[in-house]
């Protein structure tokens, strides 16, 4: 149904121009502005000099900022790995359920995705904080076992010290990873599900018939089939994790900042826009590199498969 653009010129212009103009003016242009600003220099409170030097980028790879950048990558990687480890068994279970169960389970996984990021982070605080639900439940268990031991005349052994010290569940890196996992895991589940739901189940039958066990079948059949979906899932989880700033802001402690917090600070309080722009563009460069790697991977993957068919 696709026509060449010269055939129905008027309609084409009418349909193309609004979207293209908006995209160019309100998306590409702002990006170009911060791209040029990332090579600039702050001269006074509001003034920026476009000096086309790399010193903002050099500063980003120096000392404290580099540590934060590195830490953001590590935290995002751990989160992504955790999401992957949970998502695969969950998807395996869902995609082999009955049709009715399948839609119920899928909607229950999708539903939190539509609820506000901030609200979900907030709901985690209530559970994790020092006087939150986990700690108060643990305290209750602790006290009851203390009573029990006293009752049994075992108090001398001092198995539990008298007062309960609350666990530090919040305001540390653990809380950030948990928060990111909690928010972004649906993005890992959905792409894997879309592949696993449609693939040829006879392959599994054949594998078991030929004497492979569960582990063998998983690594030789299922994993190669879902690997492109896993790559998509990794991208969908890793990139937003890298750029997050609310979760470390609300769940992290004083020393658990991520790159998003530093960017936010450059624009909201420190007022060093050129440096903030260069950090934002570092995130964009990483995004582009990740997509490029995936593009190359899919090219290689499809070639491999053609070879396997022959």
């Amino acid at each position, binding site marked *: 149904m696709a026509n060449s653009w010269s055939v*129905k010129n008027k309609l084409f212009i009418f349909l193309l121009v609004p*979207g293209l103009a908006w995209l160019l003016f309100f998306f590409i242009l702002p990006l170009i502005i*911060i791209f040029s600003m990332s090579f600039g220099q702050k001269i006074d409170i509001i003034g920026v000099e476009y000096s086309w030097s790399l010193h903002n980028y050099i500063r980003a790879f120096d000392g404290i900022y580099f540590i934060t950048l590195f830490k953001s990558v590590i935290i995002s990687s751990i989160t992504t790995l955790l999401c992957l480890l949970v998502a695969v068994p969950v998807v395996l279970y869902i995609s082999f359920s009955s049709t009715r169960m399948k839609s119920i389970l899928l909607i229950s996984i999708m539903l939190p995705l539509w609820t506000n990021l*901030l609200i979900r982070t907030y709901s985690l605080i209530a559970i994790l904080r020092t006087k939150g639900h986990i700690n108060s439940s643990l305290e209750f268990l602790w006290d009851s076992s203390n009573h029990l031991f006293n009752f049994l005349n075992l108090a001398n052994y001092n198995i539990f010290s008298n007062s309960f010290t609350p666990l530090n569940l919040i305001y540390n890196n653990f809380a950030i990873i948990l928060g990111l996992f909690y928010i972004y895991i649906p993005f890992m589940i959905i792409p894997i599900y879309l592949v696993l739901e449609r693939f040829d189940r006879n392959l599994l039958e054949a594998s078991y018939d030929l004497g492979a066990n569960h582990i063998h079948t998983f690594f030789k059949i299922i994993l190669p089939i879902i690997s492109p979906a896993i790559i998509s899932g990794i991208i969908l989880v890793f990139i937003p994790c890298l750029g997050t700033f609310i979760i470390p802001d609300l769940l992290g402690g004083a020393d658990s900042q991520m790159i998003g917090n530093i960017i936010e600070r450059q624009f909201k309080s420190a007022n060093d826009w050129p440096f903030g722009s260069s950090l*934002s563009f570092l995130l964009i460069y990483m995004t582009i590199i990740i997509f490029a790697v995936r593009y190359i991977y899919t090219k290689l993957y499809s070639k491999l498969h053609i070879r396997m068919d022959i």
Partner: protein
Amino acid sequence: MRKIKLIRSPIEYARNKYLKTITYSFLVILYLPIINLIFFSFNDSKRNIVWRGFTTKYYEKMFDNQILFDAFSNSLTIAFISTVISTILGLSTAICLWKFNFYLKKYYDLALIFPIVIPEICLGVSMLVFFNFISWPNFQIWPLSLSSIIIAHVSFIFPFVAIIIRSRLSILNNEILESGTDLGATNFQIIKFIIIPFLKPAIIASFLFAFTLSLDDFVVTFFTSGPNSVTLPVKIYSMVRFGITPEINAVSTLLLLIIIISTYFVIKFLTKKNRAFIK
């Protein structure tokens, strides 16, 4: 008599007890905080840990709070206007990409995905710098004071609309279009009498989807909002930073309710089929 033991096929993963345990405990972890949040919005205690009886006083307090009310009406206004603009832009872009082949089309496709894939914070700060750079006036009059947020929202919402509508267009039966052309319809008539009615469920769904995206957005809004244009998520953020109160639970529950209802309709309209048009 020997007991008959049912031999199950090993590929019935749905009956594997390990997978089942993992899945259900995952769902419990996923829902526990949210259920806790809703539950404690009715709790008659400031400390928010121990249940001290049912109350709706935090809801009443919320409705009396003028600042919260203003923030909420700002959010709704922004969501409505940016949704209307996004739907129009997304619809025309989707039809254009579906119907025409043109020079650099591949790159236009890619550029449309870009606002969706880059980290939100980058979009937020680029918008902040952009409005400063072109010295966008700081309007004092009410709907205009929201203009910068609306523009920023449309930039990342309309590509979503274009993608939803385009995927719907890919199942349109071409014979109907050809018979339309045979019977002498002009292009505008084809769009008006065939494509738009066919797309109606997808348009409604993407309208609602865009509405929830805008209502829900925090990061982009945070960077583009000024003192005169506080939205509900931005207000919730400052409340959370200040401390934890049951009032936040009440506001969150209300927002959750709105989003869940509109999501229900999104799913309903997206799965609706008008058979006459489909291949």
